[in-house]
């Protein structure tokens, strides 16, 4: 309950009022949010597809990792900032929205999956860097990553259709 109160308190800030009242604030923030989410998912999908042996098979996994991650992290940072700003306007309504809650859980799951992959599986990357067939742990991480991020996009889009009483 304390969390919901905190979300509601966010609605009283000046930033929240600006997002609610300026007619261009929400559409512009939303466009940047959509673009950055597209780039997060599009870039991370390419690494996942390499780990699954589907794409860029003749390239080292570390090479694909290096070309993808600057995009992923830059876009992720933009999506978090724009996402937080977007929800300030009616933070309470988002916090109690089922699809929003599922989106947050899926993002957390993607984070845990990333941490496990990075700190455990990735340590042996030099053994399978050039191989088309990566170890099962890497393939599972890739499948989970694809699933979680696809779920994040579906839930995110769904929020727009289900969040209650949009006054602006």
């Amino acid at each position: 309950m304390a969390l919901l109160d905190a979300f509601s308190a966010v609605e009283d800030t000046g930033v929240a009022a600006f997002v609610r009242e300026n007619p261009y604030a929400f559409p512009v923030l939303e466009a940047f949010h959509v673009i950055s989410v597209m780039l997060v998912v599009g870039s991370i999908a390419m690494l996942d597809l390499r780990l699954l042996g589907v794409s860029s098979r003749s390239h080292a996994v570390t090479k694909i990792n290096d070309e993808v991650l600057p995009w992923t992290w830059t876009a992720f940072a933009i999506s978090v900032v724009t996402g937080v700003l977007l929800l300030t306007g009616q933070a309470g309504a988002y916090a109690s929205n089922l699809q929003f809650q599922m989106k947050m859980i899926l993002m957390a799951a993607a984070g845990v999956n990333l941490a496990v992959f990075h700190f455990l599986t990735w340590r042996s990357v030099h053994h399978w860097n050039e191989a088309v067939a990566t170890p099962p742990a890497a393939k599972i991480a890739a499948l989970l990553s694809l699933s979680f991020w696809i779920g994040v996009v579906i839930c995110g889009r769904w929020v727009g259709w289900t969040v209650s009483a949009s006054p602006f």
Partner: protein
Amino acid sequence: MLQNIQDWLGHTGMADYVRSSVTAKALLESVHILAMGLVLFSVGMISIRLMGLAGRSESATALSRRFGPWLWAGMAMVLITGLVLLTGAGQRGLANPMFAVKMALMFAAILLTAALQASLAADTAYWELTPGRRALAKLLAPLCFLLWLATVCAGRWLAYWTTFFPPAY
């Protein structure tokens, strides 16, 4: 509060239809967005390679060929889901002035992307042969990416067209 609204809606005859159609719309739009993610990232990679900012370990032609299938498969998915969405678009469809803006930007983006890919397929060094071409590549590559970003913006703003095109009266 959301639960109350859902409970109330659940007792109206429209409930099933609205729920299923909103779900269908959300899912179609999600595929539209996911496929566009492949397009944006692929175009982005080709653009920064043409600008000489990254991916120099690989020829521009090889990189363009590597991302080509994802770019155009994504594009095909975007067009298919877009057409299906259009059938149920109502105010967001053909009558929407923002839709014309989106289509104009999209056609420009597709043409420029195809032209850049075709030039790279014909000659790896095409954009490096003369100083003029090098300068042009540094202009056209980011322009191509920006046209795609603008297309996405116009797409999202279909829902807000009255904000961007206020009625004259």
